[in-house]
């Protein structure tokens, strides 16, 4: 028996046509991050009664009077027992304007990898500072991670304004220092907001005590920041995930290349090159999950049909004939080492880039970087957990990489331990490589100077 009410004709069902913003928060408990996150969830009515009841119950058990909103996100036994956050927690909330995915990451030094993980998919990062302390080492580290991961929007939330008398001068000095620092790292957009997460000033509702501030609240900013960069600015990149060949009576000759458009726009009739073979063809059809369309763009999952019968398989890249990346076996990159065992010069690894995994060897580790002050340590020999550094890798087969600055999705890769599959290192293809690639199309305005660590 069908129970789907087919009378629910199109147009009468609220299927929630809102956009999606992925953002990350960085900061320590001391900065009031949990309070900020708790307030965003609570004031946007995303914490439900049974969750709040559970938090109140747990807080009482620990002898705390007020509900500890950190317990909303810290769910693992070890976290509850030790009162710390040990991992990235994903939280979900919605307002009538937008759906949000929040990657809530702990701010301690040893958890750089968690911040890097949270920032890797974020379109916006909220960096918290305590108004009494201003920009400290940890703030600089958070700004550096956001810059390194190319998070397009950064919010500086100057918290605990209530403890500095809500004074504009305090806020202005911190905002100026941070903006200058983050700007010098290449962060393209910075929005500073004075808040008190505890009192609720400028988190969801505008502050009644800071009339000198005319900007948006944190939530207003999250709701209105543009999430859709114009994909037509970027060259199209289509890593082939899977070849669809039904070979059925109904579809005897169908051959489609399934994948998610990593960047740019694809149109029927586009002349494309397939890498690494270098062969060209024309897009004959685009199947967009049940509909045949003339145009599709990142990050849509589609199936492409080409005019010519080429030998294409998983791991190949389809790109516009005039704007394809140059495949290379020598990769220079900035990396964050995420495994507990170190990464050493000479180590044999697997390199996973889009849908392709190849053997590789770590040729050099030219430098390690201290995130607090961006000082360089030449030739460290190896990288330990949470280290940021530069590496040079030689791959067994050519890879069609872009510079990470041009494309987060096709400029990123993982190094994997071939013995047990451990994820070792998160890599971002560096600018030296981008210069070597004679790519005429993307004349990026991105400031690469901030990258030359």
């Amino acid at each position: 028996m069908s129970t789907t009410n087919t009378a629910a004709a199109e147009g009468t069902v609220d299927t929630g046509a809102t956009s999606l913003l992925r953002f990350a928060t960085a900061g320590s408990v001391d900065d009031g991050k949990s309070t900020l996150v708790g307030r965003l969830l609570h004031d946007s009515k995303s914490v439900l009664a049974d969750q709040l009841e559970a938090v109140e119950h747990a807080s009482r058990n620990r002898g705390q009077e007020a509900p500890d909103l950190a317990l909303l996100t810290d769910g693992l036994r070890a976290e509850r027992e030790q009162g710390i956050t040990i991992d990235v927690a994903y939280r979900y909330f919605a307002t009538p304007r937008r759906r949000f995915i929040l990657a809530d990451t702990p701010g301690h030094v040893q958890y750089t990898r968690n911040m890097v993980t949270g920032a890797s998919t974020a379109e916006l990062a909220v960096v918290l500072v305590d108004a009494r302390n201003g920009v400290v080492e940890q703030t600089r580290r958070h700004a550096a991670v956001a810059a390194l991961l190319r998070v397009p929007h950064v919010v500086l939330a100057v918290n605990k304004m209530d403890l500095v008398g809500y004074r504009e001068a305090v806020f202005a000095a911190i905002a100026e220092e941070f903006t200058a620092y983050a700007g010098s790292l290449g962060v393209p957009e910075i929005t500073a907001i004075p808040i008190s997460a505890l009192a609720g000033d400028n988190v969801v509702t505008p502050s009644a005590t800071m009339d000198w501030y005319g900007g948006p609240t944190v939530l207003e900013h999250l709701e209105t920041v543009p999430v859709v960069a114009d994909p037509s600015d970027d060259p199209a990149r289509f890593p082939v995930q899977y070849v669809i060949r039904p070979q059925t009576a109904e579809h005897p000759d169908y051959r489609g290349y399934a994948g998610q458009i990593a960047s740019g726009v694809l149109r029927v009739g586009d002349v494309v090159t397939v890498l690494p073979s270098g062969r060209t063809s024309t897009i004959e059809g685009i199947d967009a999950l049940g509909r045949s369309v003339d145009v599709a763009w990142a990050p849509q999952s589609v199936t492409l049909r080409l005019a010519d019968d080429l030998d294409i398989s998983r791991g190949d890249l389809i790109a516009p004939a005039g704007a394809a990346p140059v495949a290379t076996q020598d990769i220079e990159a900035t990396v964050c080492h995420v495994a507990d065992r170190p990464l050493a010069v000479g180590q044999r690894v697997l390199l996973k880039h889009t849908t392709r995994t190849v053997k590789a060897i770590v040729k050099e580790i030219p430098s390690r970087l201290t995130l607090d002050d961006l000082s360089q340590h030449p030739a460290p020999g190896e990288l330990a957990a949470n280290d940021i550094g530069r590496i040079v890798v030689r791959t067994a087969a050519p890879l069609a990489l872009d510079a990470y600055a041009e494309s987060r999705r096709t400029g990123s890769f993982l190094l994997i331990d071939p013995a047990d599959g451990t994820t070792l290192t998160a890599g971002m293809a560096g600018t030296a490589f981008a210069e070597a690639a004679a790519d005429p199309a993307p004349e990026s305005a991105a400031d690469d100077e901030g990258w030359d660590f």
Partner: protein
Amino acid sequence: MTTVASIPEDLDNPYALSHLDALESEAVHIFREVAGEFERPVILFSGGKDSIVMLHLALKAFAPAPVPFALLHVDTGHNFPEVLAYRDRTVAEHGLRLHVASVQEFIDRGELRERPDGTRNPLQTVPLLDAIESNRFDAVFGGGRRDEEKARAKERVFSLRDEFGGWDPRRQRPELWQLYNGRHSPGEHVRVFPLSNWTELDVWQYIAREKIELPAIYYAHRREVFARNGMWLAPGEWGGPKDGERLELRQVRYRTVGDMSCTGAVESDADTIEAVIAEIAASRLTERGATRADDKLSEAAMEDRKREGYF
């Protein structure tokens, strides 16, 4: 009737994607990654709404070819008949292959013992791991969502399980960008959660948009139920009602569908998809808090079950 949300300016952008489009493309990408990298994937299919949405996404991901995975149902033996009928109809309609791992058979063989409270949800782990091992499944799709529960909020999309099926939250691989690392040793397998980033409301909005048929019990209907632990449970051979528990006829629906012994109905008049969406949007309780006795066992009930190899 729900109100139509006003469309924010950024959806005027010709390249805008609605949140459902974005979540759909992400889930399809995950299905295709698994198809490309694993030998023997399987979809956990209970006939509940999340597994139905998973199957719908898998069908779209590989069309016009058939889904290249089998289905696996871990059958507690306490099923809603409507859900079993739905399962069998769906399998026939799409020409799928269904494996059933039966809790009852393990109990009959003496390999599992009935719990005093009659709840069989925690008993599913052993038959599940047995089915994974004997069929040599290397990737197992689950419908778990991170918004469901605190321990699940820290789950990866690709979640490595050791040879005992166990989950160690402190030894998870960092998951960056959209690069999923599915490498595993023989005997290990990977649980894959394509709906990780979906919320209950997203699932329902997607069901409405895609006009996906669900088992009838998700919509309001008259049913004989009895109260236990603050929930409305349906009577059945599993052991209810007991002495002192009185059957009453109520207008109810189910927000989640699981083992009959621990899945409660909620009182509801929502008999259409629009009414269900309106009800969920206004609800002040999470779906697990409202309807799952198994999650009320302790503060870390889900984490403990996951560590043992549960879904």
